[in-house]
């Protein structure tokens, strides 16, 4: 009797250990044998790419891989960096609040996740690109007639997604902010939660980059929901490629790849594919000037 129980306990333990072991294959980005990401790409290793998983048309998890503009750009840039050969990619969700720690900790190798290049972030991250330029805009409910311009946000409730700086452009004066309007912020974990809130009554407006808003508005429209984007972009958000601070070698390679993809029309094609035909959206027409690697 006694032995039988011990056997049962042991077999449960073994089963549990096996379950743990078989799932434990994702190695993360902390591979010590490559000093830079470009070496890792050339070496044929699997690259961990951080994208959003919850932003339609940019990075949205729909199958085993996310899909969207950022995802396609990531694939094209990595392929270009590897001299036209495909790169093995493992996708990792990188919410706004996780981007800097993930790069710093080596959780991901490279980030394409609506990552605006700002002076503040440059202190922690090396940016390749920019590969496209977005503009901060405002999205409200379709039936909302009170908000027609960013200035109307005075006294309204706007969303503050963790790790994103967009709300500051409304509430703070320059240099950190822009408009210095007295609006109330509502905390949310990410922009898809902001959009969930906007559908209810706890939020009046979501304000962030027009590409992000356009993606959400398009998704809502297809599902019978109704939001409208004001179409009054008032900043330039340079979307960069996030790299671990100091990896200038990879950064140069990213810039070369981005330039090539603009020159051969790939970027324009991808942009039209995901955002073509949306009213009031100012798409990037030509290659944005590179920022330089630091």
């Amino acid at each position, binding site marked *: 009797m006694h032995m039988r129980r011990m056997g049962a306990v042991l077999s449960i333990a073994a089963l549990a250990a096996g379950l743990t072991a078989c799932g434990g294959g994702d190695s993360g980005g902390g591979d010590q044998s490559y000093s830079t990401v470009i070496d890792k790409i050339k070496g044929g290793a699997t690259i961990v790419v951080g994208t959003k998983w919850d932003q339609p048309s940019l990075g949205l998890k729909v199958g085993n891989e996310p899909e969207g503009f950022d995802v396609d750009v990531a694939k094209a840039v990595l392929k270009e960096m590897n001299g036209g050969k495909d790169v093995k990619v493992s996708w990792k969700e990188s919410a706004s609040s996780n981007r800097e*720690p993930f790069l710093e900790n080596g959780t991901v190798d490279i980030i394409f996740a609506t990552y605006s290049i700002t002076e503040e972030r440059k202190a922690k991250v090396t940016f390749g690109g920019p590969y496209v330029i977005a503009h901060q805009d405002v999205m409200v409910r379709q039936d909302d007639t009170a908000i027609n311009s960013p200035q109307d946000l005075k006294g309204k409730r706007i969303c503050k997604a963790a790790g994103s700086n967009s709300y500051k452009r409304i509430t703070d004066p320059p240099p950190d902010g822009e408009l210095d309007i007295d609006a109330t912020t509502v905390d*949310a974990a990410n922009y898809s939660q902001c959009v969930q*809130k906007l559908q*209810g009554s706890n939020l009046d407006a979501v304000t962030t980059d027009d590409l992000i808003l356009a993606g959400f508005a398009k998704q809502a429209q297809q599902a019978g929901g109704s939001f409208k984007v004001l179409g009054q972009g008032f900043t330039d958000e340079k979307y960069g490629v996030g790299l671990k601070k100091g990896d200038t070698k990879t950064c140069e390679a990213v810039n070369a790849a981005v330039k090539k993809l603009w020159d051969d029309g790939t970027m324009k094609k991808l942009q039209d594919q995901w955002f073509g035909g949306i009213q009031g959206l100012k798409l990037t027409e030509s290659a944005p000037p590179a920022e330089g690697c630091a």
Partner: protein
Amino acid sequence: MDELIKYAPDLALGFLENVKIAAVGAVVSMILGTILVAMRVSPTPVLRAAGTVYVNVVRNTPLTLVLAFSALGLSDRLGLVFSDVPLTNSFWLVSLGLSAYTAAFVCEALRAGVNTVPIGQAEAARSIGLTFMQSLTMIILPQAFRAVIAPLGSVMIAMIKNTTVATAGGYLADSAAVMKITFDQTGASIPIFIGLIIAFMVLTMPIGFLTGWLSRRLAVVR
């Protein structure tokens, strides 16, 4: 140590939020838990069943889901709004979500206490002609209450520790959220972590000692 001193005011404010949530949670969960246990021992099968279903569902749902659902589901989607001020609204959602969750455990602790009273006590009460309410209020509950002090203390301690999950309900003012935001800047800081733990222990340990002492003092000797 420097970072603890630098961020202490923020952390203290965050901890105060935990205390406030815990205060609401203690009162409301006790009331709800008592109502639930009354339902679960009542002579009405429907109420018994409703109480049982509530306790079993809530007890087996993660608190993280309860709080996330309160914020995103109940408030944002279904329109349960306590206040137009977003922060106040989150506070009440988190406090009441935590109360609804803890009430299931309060109910179970109380019910376990009722179960410690020997059957003979109830039988004796009935045999001298006491009604259900009389035997409950004069014989059973006074004895059950004593047996229940220590377990209730444990439930309250767990509830206080659970106030840190407020983050999941979108209430980013409590000490766990403040600690995470601080760690984003400083990296893991041992002094800050230990400081917060001590703050929580200062809150929970007296409850443990007090309820332990009371339950020993008031123990029904059998």
